[in-house]
């Protein structure tokens, strides 16, 4: 009691916080390692730019494939990258929405977590194994279908022949890619669907809506931007995927949209993986420069996805 009575007179000057060495060192270490991440990201950009300068300024004849300059060289690759990723996205988007809805709203509550684990299991399979499976199992299995498709629907430009005899086409690669990006897309969408306000769902059901009508009215409008960001994350994955494409695709230096021929546009990442071990001089710089292009594309896609998610977080009804 006496202490409290005395204290007002004693603390005329506010007490000084003790600064401990341990605190200083520890907080400095955490700040440094946090900043290191920014440094690494910046360094990635800088090193890639430095290494790709010789390719960007190369004279005609130095770039592989007899390309006049770097942009002519990288053009078909950019097209192939985006095209393969888009195809994979077209396959994976409806599937992942379906799976996410199945796990969050349709499957019995008890097994839904187990089903989530099973889908996550797909994410644990290394890409090189997907590649092996794609070329040795899927391509062989699906090739007869391609022949049928070309014979019956060959008048549609997409399915124009001549059909690939090995099944190593861009459609096969896109199917493998789709399987690979499903887990991340499903995971994001599942989280969003689970966050849909429970009261809205119950209100819809109480008014006599069927389960699909309830999802249409209460879940999908709430989850729209989350679905968009899930799709864009999947797109980012698909753009950067390397080995599965390098193994599955039989590439050529072309720009075309034929799904089933053996002349397929290659992707940036797969091109780097296959050419890098033998590349020297300007060819090496060219590959690194194409990697820089890929880096910029995926960076833009990912930043857009994150931007949508973050903007949503602030104004959503969930919090």
């Amino acid at each position, binding site marked *: 009691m006496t202490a409290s009575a005395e204290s007002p007179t004693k603390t005329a000057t506010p007490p000084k916080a003790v600064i401990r060495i341990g605190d200083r060192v520890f907080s400095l270490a955490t700040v440094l390692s946090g900043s290191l*991440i920014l440094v690494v990201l910046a360094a990635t950009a800088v090193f890639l730019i430095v290494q790709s300068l010789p390719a960007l300024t190369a004279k005609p004849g130095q770039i592989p494939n007899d390309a006049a300059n770097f942009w002519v060289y990288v053009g078909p690759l950019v097209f192939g990258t985006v095209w393969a990723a888009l195809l994979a996205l077209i396959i994976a988007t409806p599937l992942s929405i379906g799976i996410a809805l199945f796990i969050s709203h349709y499957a019995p509550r008890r097994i839904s977590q187990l089903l989530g684990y099973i889908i996550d299991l797909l994410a*644990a399979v290394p890409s090189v194994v997907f590649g092996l499976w794609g070329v040795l199992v899927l391509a062989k299995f699906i090739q007869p279908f391609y022949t049928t498709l070309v014979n019956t629907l060959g008048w549609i430009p997409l399915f124009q022949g001549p059909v690939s005899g090995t099944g190593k086409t861009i459609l096969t690669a896109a199917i493998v890619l789709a399987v690979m990006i499903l887990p991340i897309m499903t995971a994001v969408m599942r989280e969003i669907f689970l966050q849909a306000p429970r009261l809205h769902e119950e209100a819809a059901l109480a008014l006599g809506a069927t389960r*699909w009508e309830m999802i249409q009215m209460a879940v999908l409008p709430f989850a729209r931007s989350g679905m968009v960001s899930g799709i864009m994350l999947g797109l980012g994955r698909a753009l950067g995927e*390397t080995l599965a494409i390098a193994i599955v695709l039989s590439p050529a230096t072309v720009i075309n949209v034929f799904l089933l021929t053996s002349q397929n546009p290659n992707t940036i990442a797969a091109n780097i993986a296959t050419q890098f071990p033998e590349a020297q001089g300007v060819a090496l710089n060219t590959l690194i420069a194409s990697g820089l292009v890929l880096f910029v594309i995926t960076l833009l896609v990912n930043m857009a996805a994150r931007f949508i998610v973050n903007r949503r977080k602030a104004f959503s009804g969930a919090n």
Partner: protein
Amino acid sequence: MSVAVRNTSANTLTAGKLPKGAPWGLLIVSWLIFIGVFALLQASGTTTDFNVVGAFFFGTILFDILIVVISMVVEGGRKAKDRLVTSLVTTAFIITLLPLISLIYTVISRGVARFDSAYFNESMRNVIGAGGGAVHAIVGTLEVTAFAALISIPIGLLTSIYLVEYGRGRLARAITFFVDVMTGIPSIVAGLFAYSLFALFAGPSIRAGIVGSVALSVLMIPVVVRSSEEILKIVPNELREASYALGVPKWLTIVKIILPTSIAGLTTGVMLAISRVIGETAPLLITTGFTTSMNYDLFSDRMMTLPVFVYTQYANQGPDATPFLERAWTGALVLILIVMALNLLARLIGRLFSPKLR
């Protein structure tokens, strides 16, 4: 959804409704129909072996059509639409399971052929055709990944501690944003980064295990940060406040209170991160290169790793492809086993050692 009342003929509540087990029964019936169809095809010699995937795929499609038609007749339009979506959603799930089952079945059935002691005791040195093993690749994978973990775990943990305990303002927001962005860096770009970094002072022909470790840690750090951040956030604030109230400095609070509380979750996150990078192929292909001999030294010369081993066995097949493909499949099997083991162990640790709050 459906009302759980016995379906007696006199009950008006369930009139005009399909009985509760109808969809499941219908699904099994349509599977059986197509299993029958494909069994007949095999028996008649049209197809060489029994097409399991085809049977389940077409059976599921048949189910989708049947359930909608039946529901349309019995229950009317709105309900039929609901049934349609339900069956489509279920179909999506089953279709996704097909590649997973096919993949696991193939890897196991083709991988066991070379799952022998030679595979784990011999390298590929002077092996041209059959024989040989992947011990050099397994050792390489373990060394490269271990060193990557050694780089990433301290940086990742400290960063997540910064974000949760210290970070306020612009720097913290920038780090959060760019960690998210970094999760999306293509693995091959991480490889190119590590390569260009080392090529600056070691020349353009640099290939060594350490370069691969740096590339992997670029991929691993954001994963570690994200998972540890989530775990540290759920440590109850009362623990921190109680510690401060006793006069414990902040750094000691973190080291002695917060980290021990969350150690199980942190371990799980770190092991999941390791299992994610251990299967990476592309960055290792361009940074560690490939070789047929054993190399224990991370800091010099090319080093084989298991994913790259699988790739090169497929890509550089000899005149007789069989032994190469067998080695590739066994490599894939070993790789999947390692990843699965890490995953299971991580989840087990998370479950067994997490603090019991209640």
